[in-house]
């Protein structure tokens, strides 16, 4: 009976399940609805304000401990470690605690070189001699004058108890937190209003690997990694000169991301360095996660898709530009380094150019020039020539083109847009799928789709050739951002050519070049050394023989203009 009742109840008296509906409450609405809540919020926020206002370290260790526990939410945060202990110095005991983040710091280092010397009794900390030391003594008129050095526990701990190569005394909480967040540990001692910032970094990181996107045949096979120190060391190792300055700047109110500004002090223009620092120092952002973000934040204009700052994963490329007098910025957590200023020529140059004989390099540069033209204009030219200027196409070729399009029901622009967008889709899919599948998707997509499209009379075979050549040409552009920019702009020219043939393409081309001429990268015109014409001895678009590259780029206004002697091959022309 009971069961029947339950069944009936479940059938007829069942209440619908409540939908799980989570909404983020707007704080302002909440405040309007409930004065109490608002007051609480206000109180809590005022509490935070007072917490934020705390700047200097307190002499009382308990207060410091409470403050740190609140700031770091130690009750919730599992990786923040506060280790309280008794410190022994000169046989006296002081209350102390260590603050560090598990995973960022090397616990072995902390155990062996911080806690052990401080906690364990040893000859260094158990000696109980005079607390003051007489340095010198003199007696005049029965008056003894003594020069005394009072016992200073800070100096004592720093000089005798902590065998660490990098140790800083911090008086402000912000500096302490900054160190702790980057993997250091902080030592607080009772009665002292300073804390020791001890370098015990020890987190896992990717080892130096070969470059993935800027591959060269002849040349170094090292690429930047995510760790800023590793990256700066890579650069310093190649520069190998004391004039290399690596300045640290923190960006982001919350993330406080480390950025390293690198330049050669005796070469780079001071104004350029100052401008880079000015722009990076004046960024009102919460967090900085990548060099790509920084690039967008510090370039002159964001109106166009044209890249104005070089981004590279190769330390040798960065070094080459540093020697020219440019400035490099490395962002912690990102394996790409920014180089500024950059000109159009830089985006079409490959690191390989430096390693090859100038004839080979120039041949490759010539090919890249053609690749740029094809990427940008080939589809547009195809549409313009087939729709408006058929006389440009030789008669026999024109006949075969017409024959191949005979069965295609779509207008030319539809046909080409379908294929171009399909090609971009294949490319994007090839990049995003797991790496073993990537090339397969590309080949299968391109071959099968192309063949099927032609068989189904959706597109003509000649169009497949045009789209394929355009795609291949776009891969020949060394800089990813610049290649992307050209790929995007190709569609604009495509539409212009469909509207009015060479008229649209011609006007579009002039407007585009004018835009390029109007751009500046850190004060340097984008189109130098061509517009405006500058002295580009040995460093124009094409490279001259290595012995002829005597000068640094004129437009960088470097402190040293010559990069090598007039006769660099002294062995050959030395007068006996």
């Amino acid at each position, binding site marked *: 009976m009971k069961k029947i009742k339950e069944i009936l109840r479940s059938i007829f008296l069942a209440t619908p399940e409540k939908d799980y509906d989570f909404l983020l409450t707007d704080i302002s609405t909440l405040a309007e609805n409930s004065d109490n809540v608002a007051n609480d919020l206000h109180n809590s926020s005022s509490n935070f304000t007072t917490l934020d206002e705390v700047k200097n370290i307190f002499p009382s260790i308990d207060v410091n401990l409470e403050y740190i526990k609140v700031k770091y939410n130690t009750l919730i945060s599992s990786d923040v470690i506060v280790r309280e202990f008794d410190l022994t110095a000169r046989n006296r005991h002081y209350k102390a605690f260590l603050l560090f983040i598990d995973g960022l710091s090397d616990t072995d280092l902390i155990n062996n070189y911080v806690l052990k010397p401080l906690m364990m009794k040893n000859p260094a900390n158990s000696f109980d001699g005079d607390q003051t030391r007489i340095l010198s003594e003199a007696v005049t008129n029965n008056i003894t004058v003594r020069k005394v050095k009072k016992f200073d526990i800070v100096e004592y701990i720093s000089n005798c108890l902590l065998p660490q190569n990098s140790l800083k005394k911090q008086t402000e909480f912000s500096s302490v937190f900054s160190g702790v967040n980057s993997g250091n540990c902080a030592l607080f001692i009772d009665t002292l209003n300073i804390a020791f910032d001890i370098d015990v970094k020890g987190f896992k990181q990717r080892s130096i690997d070969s470059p993935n996107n800027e591959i060269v045949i002849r040349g170094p096979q090292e690429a930047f990694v995510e760790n800023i120190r590793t990256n700066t060391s890579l650069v310093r190792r190649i520069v190998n000169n004391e004039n290399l300055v690596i300045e640290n700047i923190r960006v982001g109110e919350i993330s406080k991301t480390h950025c390293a500004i690198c330049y050669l002090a005796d070469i780079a223009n001071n104004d350029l360095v100052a401008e880079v620092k000015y722009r990076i120092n004046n960024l009102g952002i919460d967090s900085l996660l990548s060099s790509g973000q920084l690039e967008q934040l510090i370039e002159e204009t964001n109106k166009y898709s044209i890249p104005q700052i070089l981004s590279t994963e190769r330390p040798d490329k960065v070094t080459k530009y540093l020697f020219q007098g440019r400035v490099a910025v490395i962002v912690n957590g990102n394996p790409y380094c920014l180089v500024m200023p950059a000109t159009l020529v830089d985006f079409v140059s490959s690191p390989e150019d430096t390693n090859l004989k100038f004839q080979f390099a120039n041949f490759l540069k010539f090919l890249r020039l053609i690749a740029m033209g094809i990427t940008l204009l080939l589809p547009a030219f195809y549409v313009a020539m087939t729709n408006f200027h058929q006389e440009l196409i*030789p008669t026999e070729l024109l006949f075969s083109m017409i024959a191949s399009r005979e069965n295609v029901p779509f207008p030319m622009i539809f046909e080409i847009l379908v294929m171009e967008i399909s090609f971009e889709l294949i490319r994007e899919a090839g990049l995003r799928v797991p790496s073993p599948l990537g090339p397969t998707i590309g080949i299968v997509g391109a071959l099968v789709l192309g063949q099927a499209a032609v068989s189904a009379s959706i597109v003509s075979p000649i169009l497949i050739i045009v789209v394929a050549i355009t795609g291949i040409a776009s891969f020949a552009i060394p800089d990813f951002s610049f290649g992307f920019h050209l790929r995007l702009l190709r569609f604009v020219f495509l539409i212009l050519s469909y509207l009015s043939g*060479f008229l*649209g393409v*011609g006007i579009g081309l*002039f407007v585009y*070049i004018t*835009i390029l*001429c109007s751009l500046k990268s850190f004060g340097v015109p984008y189109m130098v050394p061509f*517009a405006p014409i500058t002295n580009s001895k040995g460093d124009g678009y094409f490279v001259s023989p290595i012995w002829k590259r005597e000068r640094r780029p004129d437009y960088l206004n470097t402190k040293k203009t010559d990069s090598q002697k007039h006769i660099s091959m002294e062995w050959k022309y030395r007068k006996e």
Partner: protein
Amino acid sequence: MSQTTKIGNIEAIFLIVTIMINHIILNLPKFLLDKTHSGSLLNIIFITLIVLGIVYFISKLLKRFPNMDILDISEFLGGKILKYTIGILFMIYFLFFAGVFLRSFCESIKIIYFPTTPVMFLIIFFIIGMMMTNRLGTNAIIRANLIFIPVILFTIILIFFANIGNFTMQRMFPLLGNGIMPTFLSGLSNIFAFGGIAFLYFIPPYLKDAKEFKKIAITSVILSGIWLLFSIATLLFIFPSIVTTDEILPLYFASRFIQFGRFFQRLDAAFLLIWIISMTSYLSITLSFATNIFKKVTSFKYPYLIVYGGCLIVFLLSLIPKNYVQVHFLETTIYQYFVLSLIFAISLSILIFATFKRRKQIRVKGDGFIE
């Protein structure tokens, strides 16, 4: 052009050559040929020498007014009224003839490629181009022009050399054409072909090195003369001077004769592509200078509004002529008289009188009568 913008020698030379080249692409060579027939070659050499002399004279006169353009000099000579008058005349010169040449070019490409398209549609394309480039500033336009001009100059040389097989050299005879008087005396008015030197009156304040003005002026005239000679020679040697070519773009018709083997038999569209770029460059430069004059005369604060206004004026002016005959009349006859009177008479007179005034001032200052 803002006062901070400075241009180099080559940029300045190419700026002046651009104006000349665009007139060559349009109907200038045909007009000169119609006037002096086979004597055109001698006539071009003659007028080039005359213009060289004038330009040398202008550079000597402008030397007394460092970093001053014709508007400043007019103000110095005749106060604000003369400055406004000259400013307005030059604005008319730049804007009106930009409109006329734009219409002429669009009519030509309409006949060649877009027979069913309204000419307004083609004009709007150029106007949008002008608007976009002028928003980017004069400096950017001049630099873009610097990149394209070598290509444009090359096309004219290419038309000459690629057509050598089609030349009938005997057409240059009689060398004096219709006689000495038509070639050298009435042909003297052909100096209007060098209308591009109007920019010489405006560039001194913007030169990186003002001392180079003379070099810039002379080089640009020599280059313009050489290219004019090439284009005249091409047309003269290909087409009988009495029969003449079609009314539109004579150099385009010369380019239609070019063929390289069996594969490349009609390359004229490629030439037209480059000339479209050239025309956009020309229009952008003239609009830019016109807006700069407007800014200088009126102290107007909104640069983009001037650009939009200028584009609108050029657009409306280009629609004024009812047909191609009117366009042709405006771009040849009216243009000729306007250039001769404004550039070679009025502006030169202002320079001469201003020089007299300056010399007088210096002399009086030297005698100690005026502080």
